[in-house]
């Protein structure tokens, strides 16, 4: 499942995938894979992304009922 909330949060801070990747210490392709839903990050990476974007885990990674429909 695509993670559109992550994409929106990143775009909200005017960050490119490459810039976010640099902030959390991963490759641009890894950020792309997370946004596309091709890769499930570990909790450590989720926390690093949340800290970089100033969001909580719930806001970025917790599945909402409406998204599962």
């Amino acid at each position: 499942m695509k993670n559109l909330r992550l994409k929106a949060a990143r775009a909200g801070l005017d960050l490119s995938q490459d810039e976010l990747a640099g902030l959390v210490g991963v490759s641009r392709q890894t950020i792309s894979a997370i946004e596309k839903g091709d890769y499930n990050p570990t909790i450590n990476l989720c926390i690093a992304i949340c800290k970089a974007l100033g969001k909580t885990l719930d806001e970025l990674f917790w599945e909402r009922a409406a998204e599962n429909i």
Partner: protein
Amino acid sequence: MTGTAAGLVAGIVVGLIVVFFALRKLNDDGKAKTKYDERQKAVRGMAYTYGFWTILAANAAMLVISATAFDVAKLGPCLYFIPIFAGIVVQVSYSIFNDGYVGLNTNMKKYTIFMIIVTVFNIGVALTAFINGKMFTNGRLQGPFLNLLCGLLFFVVAVDLLIKQAMDGKEA
């Protein structure tokens, strides 16, 4: 230890030292260890698995070919290396196409130049040996064929990287 064995061991040691210093130059942070993120490590784990099974399959194929069609002893020392090279090609190709090959601290510009130098050097050595008639002795392949395999391996890596780059360009 015979002279050949001592030469082989010395060659391996020198090779490892060269690779160590080359990696330090090729990585942006000057460290010999290439860094990968968690997804890349997972991809590389799968790549090594496929590479391992390829080596086993290639060895089995060698046995079958030897028993049925062709005397593999004519491959000389290359007999041991062809399955290894097959495994490396699979491991590297899988890593490249799943974005697990290029490390976080790899300087791609330097790496590309390094690959071109290694490819040209190895193919040059193989061509020189071929021209001087040293590729075969009594109908058996000799060591310089390994240089040709090395050159081809780096050429395949370069082609894989170019294809991947083109694919990424289309996606963007």
